[in-house]
């Protein structure tokens, strides 16, 4: 099933009285526009399938409250959703994102999905992160291949380190693996081994194992940048796993420092876990809200830590698929299809929900169970990469997201 985002659909949505916006232009942004700023791109993978209907609630949809049951955000009351545009409301665990939305520095894309239509987390994440149309292509990720397309010199001045890419975590997320060199960084509390040993190990690898040598060198370089960026000992101490609000915040704070460093990377990928809410999911409070508060905290840390560079930044938070529109037998939701993507950052042309709302009536649900996807997530991601990094639509359709030439980038997600 291929989903396009033709402007005609937005008219239909508009007729339903929704606040929806779509870019109509399809001309790629000239490279000079990307060159004018020193862009930063952050991709946050939400592993486990985020329930888009509890994260960003279509409170204006007459079928929502009944269908999503105990997981539905109430329109009014103590833990009601934070109103976005009259139709959608944001989970109350995300006040920072709500403020950014008001400041027009954040937007939500709703009823989105990759082209993957089965419901396996791992295959879904493969497709989400690899950018290939099917699973089991786990050699490289779309973000890495996008970086590999950037001109190696002259494109951005003041860059000492060759690596533009940062993978946060003890292992880099798949989206960031591939041909372009990647720095790794993870919050940790180990005392550093010191240069003397490092030099000798590198020397041994130079003779016996260049691949391990290159990896170790890159790891050491990142540590250096992190230290130059003023990362304190406290910032290095582990604050929790990537499924806890503390861990998410800490990972974001560290990545922000590295991205803000003059010679640091420009593009980062993080992965937050724990979105697989099969039971006791909660709505405005509870398990999912707790994790959403971690994501919200991450947005805040990026805003704080990027400083001057925040105005050049676009953060996207995406997940492999959504969850069932109906509540399951254990006060949670099972694997589904359509869901949300969050965009935040000083460069985002925000203050709107980008959605061609499919409706929630039984015959409007995908296979009678899930929020139907009406926007191909790749169109959103392509829009961000085109506007932020100046990558051509052709390269996006062939190299970054192979076999996706028919999926046009959504224009205007980033400020001109």
């Amino acid at each position, binding site marked *: 099933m291929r989903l396009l985002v033709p402007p005609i659909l937005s008219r239909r949505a508009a007729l339903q009285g929704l606040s929806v916006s779509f870019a109509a232009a399809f001309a790629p942004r000239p490279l000079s526009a990307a060159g004018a700023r020193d862009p930063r791109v952050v991709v946050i993978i939400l*592993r486990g399938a985020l329930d888009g209907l509890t994260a960003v609630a279509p409170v204006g949809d007459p079928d929502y409250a009944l269908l999503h049951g105990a997981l539905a955000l109430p329109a009014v009351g103590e833990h009601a959703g934070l109103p976005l545009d009259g139709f959608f409301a944001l989970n109350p665990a995300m006040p920072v994102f709500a403020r950014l939305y008001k400041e027009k520095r954040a937007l939500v894309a709703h009823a989105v999905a990759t082209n993957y239509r089965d419901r396996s987390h791992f295959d879904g994440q493969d497709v989400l992160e690899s950018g290939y149309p099917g699973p089991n292509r786990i050699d490289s990720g779309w973000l890495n291949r996008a970086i590999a397309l950037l001109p190696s010199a002259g494109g951005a001045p003041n860059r000492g380190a060759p690596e533009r890419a940062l993978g946060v975590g003890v292992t880099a997320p798949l989206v960031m693996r591939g041909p372009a060199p990647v720095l790794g960084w993870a919050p940790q509390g180990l005392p550093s081994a010191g240069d003397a040993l490092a030099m000798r190990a590198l020397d041994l690898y130079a003779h016996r194992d260049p691949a391990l040598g290159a990896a170790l060198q890159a790891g050491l370089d990142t540590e250096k940048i992190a230290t130059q960026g003023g990362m304190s000992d406290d910032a290095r101490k582990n604050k929790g796993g990537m499924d806890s609000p503390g861990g998410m915040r800490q990972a974001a704070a560290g990545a922000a420092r590295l991205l803000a460093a003059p010679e640091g990377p420009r593009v980062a990928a993080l992965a937050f876990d724990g979105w697989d809410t099969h039971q006791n999911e909660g709505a405005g409070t509870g398990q999912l809200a707790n994790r959403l508060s971690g994501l919200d905290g991450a947005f805040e840390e990026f805003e704080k830590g990027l400083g001057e560079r925040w105005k050049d930044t676009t953060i996207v938070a995406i997940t492999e698929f959504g969850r069932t529109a109906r509540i399951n037998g254990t006060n949670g939701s099972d694997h589904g299809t359509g869901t949300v993507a969050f965009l935040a950052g000083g460069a985002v042309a925000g203050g709107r929900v980008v959605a061609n709302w499919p409706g929630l009536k039984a015959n409007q649900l995908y296979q009678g169970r899930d929020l139907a996807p009406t926007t191909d997530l790749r169109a959103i991601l392509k829009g961000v990469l085109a506007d932020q990094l100046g990558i051509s639509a052709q390269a996006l359709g062939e190299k970054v997201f192979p076999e996706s030439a028919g999926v046009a980038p959504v224009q205007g997600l980033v400020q001109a």
Partner: protein
Amino acid sequence: MAPGPDPYAAMTAFNRFGLGAKPGDLALAASDPRGFLLEEIRAQGAGLIPVDGLSSTPQALQMFFAEQQQLRIARETAAAMAAPLAMANANASPTDAKAVDAKPADAKPKPQEPPVEQELLRAEAMARFNAHLKAGAGLVERLVAFWSNHFAVSVVKGPGLRATAGAFEREAIRPHVLGKFAELLIAVESHPAMIFYLDNQRSIGPGSNAGRFDGKGLNENLAREILELHTLGVDGGYAQPDVTALARIITGWSFAEAGGETGEPGAFLFKANWHEPGVHNLLGKNYPQTGRPQGEAALRDLARHPATARHVATKLARHFVADAPPPDLVDALAKVFRDSDGDLAAVSAALVTHDRAWSAPPTKIRDPNEFVIAAMRATGFTPNDPGQILGVMNSLGMPLWQPAGPNGYADTTAVWASSEQMKLRLDVSWQMAQRARDVGPPLGVLDTVCGLAASRETREALLHAESRPQALALLFMSPEFQRR
């Protein structure tokens, strides 16, 4: 081929298939490395470990239930005494398993002693580490770790898993790593830890007595992972209706909770009135049985499905030999699996006697567990507290029994030889080298783990190191020690 005293083959036996050589080990394997490994597979009681001081799953869960009950009473008492204070804390989310697990930052004072689930996990971890450290070649322990990762449960789920993850490995995995795959599969899927991890204790047949009474329904989490991860594999030829059918078939597979029910609390319990009645069709076959036997029949068929043979063969070859495993090796293992009706001793023997498994170059890198254990075996380190190893494994991104999801830890070189990982290994190597005492000259340790297979460059790097710890750390970082 008659393997002679080949120094590389002896090292391969310990590195590729085992957990690294201890002092004197290489000589034991030198004359017949394959026979050395086969002997370990055939040893009486292979895979089992002493249970002294360890708790069975029902015992563990009963202790855990009792602790939860005490905490509940304490909480309620405190709430009754200070109702306004409790209101102020209403933001804490009791439904969040992690909140229970996390440090009680905003909870009220906790009992001084560590929670029972933490003690249970530490005892099980110590037993596992001891088995790893004492093993001969360590092949069977590697198989235990492999199957434990194949059938991954994770303490991320919450304290209930922390209490049972170790017992799960000991009770469901260890007795069957060299037995029939079908028995392993049934032991795993009927273990309370797996049932709890993948929510099957909450899955209710919509047409069952319980389902009709309170309108609750299926949770297809366990059924899906059985098909996708445990047996057929994601390309194994099943579709959504099969997931739903298997979910119905295993409704009622649960465990007894504390008090008020039939069955021993914390033990497997088939809840007949939760089971979806009727004949269910899985992969084109009808299952007319009733009760638990219906699920067992389905699992037995899944265990002998050719897609399962291929899935298991591919994973085994990928784990032990190469990220892109040699197709002829995979074919050979799958054939033995099919021909022997999933006899895992036969499959394991086929693996360690296949020429390809020895001739493939050492392109893989040890995972953090293998790396840390091998370093300790090489230097004769005996931990007196499991925290010493648990902490290092956390640092290296492979906390014990705590993968992010039911697909377990990654098993590819790219993941474990990343830049961040190599930097961490350098720091960990330095830490372990400083901690090592009385290990003698570092070149002696090199002889222990590599013998004549050590490269000239590695030998020289150790010779010219400026201190003993530095030499030892270089040994831990050397390609001979990292690669396998």
